[in-house]
C-alpha cells in the first residue's frame, strides 16, 4: 500500500516535470517569434511616418528630413539584376552537371566539397576577394559592376546547392523513360528534367537573390559609397545600395537619422517579403500541379 503511494507520488512528480518542460519549450519557441514582433514594431513605430513620396524619390542629403532613398533603391535593383544574370546561368549549369553528368570520381567530390565549404565562408571574405580581384586586379574600380560580380560569387554556392536539391527531387522514372526512347543525356535534361525542376530552381534562385539584396558587408568592403546624391547610369558608376544606405544612416549620431534608417528598412523588408512571397507562391503552384 505504502510503496504504491510512493510510486504514485513519483509518477505525479514526473508528469509535473513533464508539464513544466513543455511550458519551458513553448516559451523558448515563442522567444524567437516575440523578437521578430518586437523588431517589426520598433521599425514601424520609428519609420512608418518617414516613408513618404519625397523619401522614395529623393536623393541623399545631410539633413534627415530631406534624405531620400532612390539612389539606394536603383542601385540595389541594378546590382541584383546583374548578379542574377551572372550567377543564375553558372549556378544552374553547375547544379545540372553535378546531378546529371558528373562521374563519381575524385574531381567531382572535390568540386562538391568546395561548393559546400564556400557556402560557409563569411560574406565579408567575399568582399575582400572582390576588392582584390575586381576593384584592383581587373581595374573595375569601386563600381556597380564590381559590386554585382562580388555578390554573384557570394550567391553562387547557395544557388548550386539549392538547385541541386530541386533537380534531385525530379523522379528517376522521368529520366529513365526519356533515355529508354533514345534521348541523349542532354536531351533528357533539357526537355524533361529541367522543366520539371524549374519551380524548385526558381524558388531557390529568388531566395538566394533576396539574401544578396540584404547583404551589406561585401559591398562596403569593395567600397560602395555612403553618400551618393545621384542615380547610377553606367556599370562603371559608383553606387550605393539599400543595406549600405541603412547602415550609413544607423551609424549617424543624430537621432533623426535613426528614423530615416527605419524608413529605409521598411522599404527593404517590403521588397524582401514580396520576393519571398513570390517564391512561396511558385512552390505551392508547382506542388499542386505536378504529382508523382
Amino acid at each position, binding site marked *: 500500500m505504502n510503496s504504491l503511494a510512493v510510486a504514485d507520488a513519483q509518477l505525479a512528480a514526473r508528469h509535473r*516535470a513533464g508539464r513544466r518542460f513543455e511550458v519551458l519549450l513553448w516559451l523558448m519557441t515563442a522567444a*524567437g*517569434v516575440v523578437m521578430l514582433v518586437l*523588431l517589426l514594431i520598433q*521599425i514601424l513605430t520609428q519609420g512608418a511616418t518617414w516613408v513618404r513620396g519625397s523619401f522614395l524619390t529623393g536623393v541623399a542629403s545631410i539633413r534627415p528630413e530631406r534624405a531620400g532613398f532612390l539612389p539606394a533603391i536603383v542601385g540595389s535593383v541594378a546590382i541584383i539584376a546583374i548578379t542574377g544574370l551572372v550567377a543564375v546561368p553558372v549556378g544552374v549549369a553547375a547544379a545540372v552537371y553535378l546531378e546529371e553528368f558528373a562521374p563519381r570520381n575524385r574531381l567531382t567530390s572535390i*568540386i562538391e566539397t568546395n561548393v559546400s*565549404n564556400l557556402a560557409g565562408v*563569411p560574406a565579408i571574405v567575399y568582399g575582400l576577394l572582390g576588392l582584390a580581384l575586381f576593384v584592383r586586379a581587373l581595374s573595375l574600380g569601386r563600381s556597380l559592376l564590381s559590386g554585382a560580380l562580388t555578390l554573384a560569387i557570394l550567391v553562387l554556392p547557395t544557388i548550386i546547392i539549392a538547385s541541386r536539391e530541386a533537380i534531385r527531387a525530379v523522379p528517376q522514372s522521368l529520366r529513365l523513360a526519356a533515355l529508354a526512347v533514345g534521348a541523349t543525356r542532354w536531351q533528357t535534361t533539357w526537355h524533361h528534367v529541367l522543366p520539371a525542376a524549374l519551380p524548385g530552381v526558381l524558388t531557390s534562385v529568388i531566395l538566394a537573390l533576396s539574401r544578396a539584396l540584404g547583404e551589406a558587408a561585401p559591398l562596403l568592403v569593395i567600397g560602395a559609397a555612403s553618400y551618393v546624391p545621384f542615380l547610377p547610369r553606367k556599370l562603371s558608376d559608383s553606387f550605393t545600395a539599400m543595406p549600405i544606405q541603412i547602415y550609413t544612416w544607423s551609424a549617424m549620431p543624430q537621432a533623426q537619422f535613426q528614423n530615416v534608417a527605419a524608413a529605409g528598412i521598411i522599404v527593404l523588408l517590403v521588397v524582401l*517579403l514580396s520576393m519571398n512571397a513570390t517564391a512561396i507562391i511558385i512552390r505551392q503552384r508547382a506542388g499542386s500541379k505536378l504529382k508523382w
Partner: protein
Amino acid sequence: MSELHEVGTIGPGLRRRRGRFLGEEGIRLGLAAAAGVAIVITLGIAITLISEALRFFAHVGLAEFLFGRKWAPTFKPPAFGVLPLVAGTLHIVVGSCLIAVPLGLGAALWLSEYASDRGRAIIKPTLEVLAGIPSVVFGYFAINAITPLLRKIMPGVDVFNSLSASVVVGVMVLPLVASLCDDAFRAVPRALREGAYALGATKREVCIQVLIPAALSGVLAAVVLAVSRAVGETMAVALAAGNLAQLTLDPRQSIQTMTGFIVQISAGDVAHGSVEYQTLFAVGLLLFLITLAMNLIANYIFRKFREEYE
C-alpha cells in the same frame, strides 16, 4: 575484315547521331566548366588572402600578429597584435551562443515533438522570416531597442557594447540552430520514441534521455555551425559593438571584432599597397581559416558521431 570496313562507313542517319553526340560532349564540357568555377573561386579566395597577407607579414612578424595584445594599425607608432580583435569576436560568439543554442534547441524539440501540424505550420515559416532579415536591420535594432533597454536595467553599459550585439547575433543565429536540430530530431526513427514510451517514459524523458543522445551529432554540428556564423557576422556587430579594439571581459564595454575591423577600415578609403590595406587581408585570412575550421569540424562531427539507423 570486310565487315569491319562496312561498320566504319557511316550513313547519314548515323552521322547525324554522331553530330548529336559531339554536341552533347560540348554541352557536357560547358556544364563541367560551370561546376569548376567553384574550385576557381576557392583558389581565388585563398590566393588573394594569402598573397596580400604575405606582404603584411613582410612588415609584421607572425608572432607579433598572433600574440600581440595591442591592436592599433592606424596609429603612430602602429601596433599589430590581433588578440583584442579575436577577444572581441569571442565576446560575440559566447554571448550569441548562450542565447541561440538553448533557445534553438528548445524550439527544435517543441517543433518536432510537441507542436501540432498547425503550430508547426505557423512557427516554421516565422523562424524562416527571422532568418531572412538582413544583418544590418539587426544592427539598427540593437542600437535603437536593445542598448537603450540594457542601459535602463543595468548600470555602466556603454553606448556601444558587446552585449547588445551578442543579443541580436544570438537572435539571428537562433533559426539556424532550431532548423538544424529540428532536422536532427526528425531523423531519429519513430521506433526509438515508441520503445521509450512503451517503457513508461514521459515525453520530457523521451526528449532528454532518448532524442538528444540519438541526435547528438546533428545537435553538436548545429552548435559548431552557429559558432561559425557568429564569427563571420558583420553588420550587426559593426553597428552595435563599436570600434574599440580592447582586451576586456566586460560585455558592457565597447569592443571590436575581426569583421568589425574590416568594415571600419574599408569605410575609409585605404590606399592600395598600404599597410592598412594589407591588414584587411591578414585579418580576413585569419577569419577565413577560423570559419573554415569550424565548418570542417561540424562536418566531421556530423559524419563521425552519426548514429546510423536503417
